[in-house]
């Protein structure tokens, strides 16, 4: 079967549409391996050497432009660190470029797929072509051109991009199934309504639906392209999951409604006023006894250099994650407590194992 007059239908990899040509796919396999060998492998060494270089230069690891400039300058003194940073950035630019070009070859057909799925079930979809996206959410997150809100195929791009990023370990959304299993449930065990905030392409709520088939499961995201693609993905898996374009700080759900609210890797992508408002909204929509689970980066105080120091400062600047520095430096547990949550865990080790878990009294 052909998708157009030009291209052969190359099917899917798990839930992810294949690249338009074998050459595109092969190039991206190469990029993925390059990331594993040249980025992940020397990670610890680069952290150690880079940290010393920044300390020696007396550069301040803060999120402001002049601090980032001084950190960059300090790191230029070490060729291996410079190489690591160049490899990381160039490979990331290369995979976005190839993915967007490849899917772009058959944009019309992919748009038709989205439009056809919009009207299909089993789950529902709500999005608004006139939705006013707040400025904070217009960032090219992970330097994905157009971020999550501007390109109509952003969900497709994100799906294949994370396939490259994870280097094969998330095939079939396996890691999301692990996260779904680990996500805390209310102490009374009742999971009838589940909401995932900042759901991107809906991998977590789809796996939650598999775990709790009788539950009403929702995923919301601020990007229309993301929720449309999340819905398409769920429809193709015949999963009854509901998706809606919605800001996490402005939820369109009743009070005391959900048993579980989750946020997987959302919080380091939103600025502090939105973090505070999102925690308040999660508290409002949870029923008494409901539980809020935040899966995200560890705090800078945990001592993990990947999430603090120069690695975080430069990753925030060069990976399109401008709010991640204020997130790792925030006392998120205190913010949850101030909002009314009772924390299940307080030690950094427990938080990494279970997430930041707050029960609504």
């Amino acid at each position, binding site marked *: 079967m052909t998708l157009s007059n030009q291209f052969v239908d190359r099917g899917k990899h798990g839930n992810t549409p294949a690249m338009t040509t074998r050459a595109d796919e092969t190039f991206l396999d190469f990029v993925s391996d390059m990331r*594993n*060998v040249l980025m992940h492998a020397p990670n610890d060494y680069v952290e150690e050497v880079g940290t010393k270089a920044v300390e020696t230069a007396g550069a301040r690891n803060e999120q402001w432009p002049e601090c980032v400039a001084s950190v960059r300058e300090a790191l230029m003194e070490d060729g291996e660190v410079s190489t690591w940073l160049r490899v990381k950035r160039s490979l990331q630019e290369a995979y976005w470029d190839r993915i967007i070009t490849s899917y772009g070859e058959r944009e019309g057909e992919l748009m038709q797929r989205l439009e056809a799925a919009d009207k299909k079930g089993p789950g529902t979809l709500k999005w608004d072509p006139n939705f006013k996206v707040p400025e904070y959410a217009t960032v090219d997150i992970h330097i994905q051109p157009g971020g999550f809100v501007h390109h109509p195929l952003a969900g497709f791009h994100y799906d294949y991009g994370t396939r490259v990023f994870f280097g094969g370990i998330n095939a079939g959304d396996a890691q999301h199934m692990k996260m779904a299993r680990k996500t805390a449930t209310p102490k009374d065990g009742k999971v009838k309504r589940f909401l995932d905030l900042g759901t991107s392409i809906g991998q977590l709520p789809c796996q939650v639906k598999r775990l709790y088939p009788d539950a009403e499961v929702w995923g919301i995201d601020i990007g229309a392209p993301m929720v449309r693609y999340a819905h398409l993905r769920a429809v193709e898996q015949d999963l009854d999951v509901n998706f809606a374009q919605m800001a996490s700080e402005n939820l369109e759900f009743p009070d005391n409604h959900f048993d579980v609210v989750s946020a997987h890797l959302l919080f380091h992508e939103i600025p502090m006023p939105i973090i505070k408002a999102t925690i308040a909204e999660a508290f409002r929509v949870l029923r008494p006894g409901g539980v809020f689970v935040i899966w995200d980066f560890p705090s800078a105080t945990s001592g*993990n250099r990947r999430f603090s120091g120069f690695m975080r400062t430069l990753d925030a600047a060069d990976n399109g994650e*401008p709010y991640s520095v204020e997130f790792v430096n925030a006392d998120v547990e205190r913010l949850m407590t101030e909002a009314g949550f009772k924390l299940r865990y307080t030690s950094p080790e427990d938080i990494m194992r279970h997430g930041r878990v707050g029960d609504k009294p």
Partner: protein
Amino acid sequence: MLDEPKNQAAGDNLDYVRDLPGFERGHPHYFKDPMIDHLLEIVMLLGGELWTVKDRQAVTEHLLATEGKVTPEMIEQFRPSADMKEKLARDRQTFVKHVYSCLYSDRAKATKTDYFGIVGKGE
């Protein structure tokens, strides 16, 4: 069952976000002479293009050996067996290590870490 949004006040005091590094995509360089950045990038991209040629050659040879002919459509539709997929992956990883491992000293070739190795640890 969707309600009207209630939290209209959220979003105040966000002007500072425009000044944060990373809000704009930018074009960072990591060497004092940005030409080194460009050259390293070119070398990596060429490696990717060379690998696609090597892969296409392997698929072409396989199709000729097993089918006696090859067309562009056959290459696009080709799905390698598990064994061949594994061999291609092994060859690709060997190629990457062979060509690029000289970029780092021995000390740098250390442990592998990834996001899921840190968050959700204990699985």
